């Protein structure tokens, strides 16, 4: 985005930069013009990068002590918890780090939904983001299998069995995934390999995500394009760096609270029982961040259709830039969308809640209604809303609502009417 040519000051810097323009890249990143109205919902990109690095570093350390074998995995995790110096700390950071990662990614995704960040020209950023989210779910699921507790084993059994719903080849695929006739040692070793690989794939995609972001630049709370960079933007460093840093500090407090005060509250007690292929836990649930999709799976009484519904619920997000027909990005200027947005947030929270409850009676009914509404939102409400909704007038520039006399959008908007 920065158009100015960068020339290093030192002679060596110039020599090096002519051969590999790393310093030019650093200059681009620090000077990168950022809309000056970004609020704290925009700090989660930086927080997510922090989460990824935390998972990679703690994961590398854990892999030095963990043994990926069905007979030894459970004991090696206990060995980490009891014997390895600070092993308990590193494992609790890694386990809770996964939850923090998902917490941050859900805020990041819902930020995009509210401010329309997925819309043209940012569709590719959005789709790369959805792929990262899918890989995160795969990595989290496989990571949960590694301690080889009861939830690990039965979670792996249930999720891999989803593939058996595919007609004709389903059973063959499941046997191939397992490397046997049930979840067993071959399954554990390959899951460990893939769990180790995926974070680096995510890292690569994050680079593409940021690269694609730096082509059009950031969206912002009013959702309009930058008119005059000199008026509407501030350089990334130091303004955004400091703001991101402060938000990261606040986030770290929440993170540390979980790690030090309630390290097991997000896990499941059954996973401290070693895997037993003869006994399924009475109440089997995935980790909290997968519950909404689990609720969708269970709300459909047919095996194949249940799997199709669950996968569609994720993949439908990739089509969002084309399902949302409204030209206005920010929900601030879309009074109806804003209401449907909050209904969707409530819907997803309800799905998450019933996903943790037994699939019977009233819970099942609620899950079915919430599942139907989820698809209704994306497939009917969003496309129709773009044509029917009477949107509010958008400001002329990012600066206008600020310097136009008031930071209140409504006042600024009325002011424009009088002019």
């Amino acid at each position, binding site marked *: 985005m920065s158009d100015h040519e960068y020339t290093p000051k030192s002679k060596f810097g110039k020599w090096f930069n002519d051969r590999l323009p790393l310093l030019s890249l650093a200059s681009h990143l620090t000077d990168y013009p950022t809309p000056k109205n970004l609020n704290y919902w925009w700090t989660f990109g930086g927080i997510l990068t922090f989460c990824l690095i935390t998972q990679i570093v703690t994961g590398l350390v854990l892999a030095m002590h963990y043994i990926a074998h069905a007979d030894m995995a459970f004991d090696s995790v206990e060995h980490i918890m009891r014997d390895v110096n600070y092993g308990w700390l590193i494992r609790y950071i890694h386990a809770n780090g996964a939850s923090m990662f998902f917490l941050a990614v859900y805020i990041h995704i819902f930020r995009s939904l509210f401010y329309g960040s997925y819309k043209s020209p940012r569709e590719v950023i959005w789709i790369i983001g959805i792929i990262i989210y899918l890989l995160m779910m795969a990595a989290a699921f496989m990571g949960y299998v590694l301690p080889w507790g009861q939830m690990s084993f*039965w979670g792996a*059994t*249930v*999720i*891999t*069995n*989803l593939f*058996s719903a595919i007609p004709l080849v389903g059973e063959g695929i499941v*046997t*191939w*995934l*397992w*490397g*046997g*006739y*049930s*979840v*067993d040692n*071959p399954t554990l070793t*390959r899951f460990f390999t893939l769990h180790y690989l995926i974070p680096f794939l995510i890292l690569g995609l994050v680079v593409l995500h940021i690269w694609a972001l730096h082509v059009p630049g950031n969206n912002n709370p009013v959702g309009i394009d930058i008119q005059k960079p000199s008026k509407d933007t501030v350089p990334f460093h130091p303004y955004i760096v400091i703001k991101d840093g402060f938000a990261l500090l606040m986030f770290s407090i929440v993170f540390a609270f979980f790690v030090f005060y309630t390290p097991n509250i997000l896990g499941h007690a059954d996973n401290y029982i070693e895997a037993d*292929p*003869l*006994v*399924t*836990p*009475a*109440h*089997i649930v995935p980790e909290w961040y997968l519950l909404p999709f689990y609720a969708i799976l*269970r709300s*459909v*009484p*047919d*095996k*194949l259709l*249940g799997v199709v519904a669950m996968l569609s619920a994720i993949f439908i997000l990739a089509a969002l830039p084309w399902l949302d027909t409204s030209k206005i990005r920010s929900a601030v200027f879309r009074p109806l969308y804003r209401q449907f947005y909050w209904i969707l947030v409530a819907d997803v929270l309800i799905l998450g809640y019933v996903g943790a409850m*037994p*699939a*019977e009676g009233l819970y099942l009914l609620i899950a079915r209604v919430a599942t139907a509404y989820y698809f209704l939102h994306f497939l009917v409400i969003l496309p129709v809303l773009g044509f029917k909704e009477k949107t509010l007038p958008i400001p002329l520039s990012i600066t206008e609502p600020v310097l136009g006399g008031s930071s209140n959008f409504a006042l600024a908007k009325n002011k424009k009417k009088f002019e």
Partner: protein
Amino acid sequence: MSEKKTNRRDFLFTATYAVGAVGVGAVVWPMIDQMNPDASVKALASTEVDVSSLNPGKTITVLWRGKPVFIRRRTQEEIAEAKSVKLEDLKDPQKDEDRAKDPEWLVMLGVCTHLGCVPLDQKGDYNGWFCPCHGSHYDTSGRIRKGPAPTNMEIPKYEFVNANTIKIG
């Protein structure tokens, strides 16, 4: 350039792509197939189970190929219940006779056909098995009656070696 005549170069391109595709396939297949069950997994022997101590109304669970197998010595009421069900009431119609060679002995894979959990014995609406994961109900013959599971619980290959021993596999 606009001429559509096939020339020597087109032939060379096509031949190169074809050979390349075969080569890639030949390299990729071993990478995929290595994940299938290996020789040691396939070689898992059959299991022989002593059932002499099993009284009517009791079930034992044994592990075969990493999966649980239920062996239930059914009571007369259970057999009568299983036989009295009309085939049209079943989601996956199958006669009880076809599932239990000797009606007193039901030998089946204790794996829910929905997503592979182990159903609980003597639970559910049909006095048979109930899967706690997603709520599938099975009857006293292990047939699916209610819930998301698509088929009856599977009957493995088994035989009575003698009056007290069942060989599975």
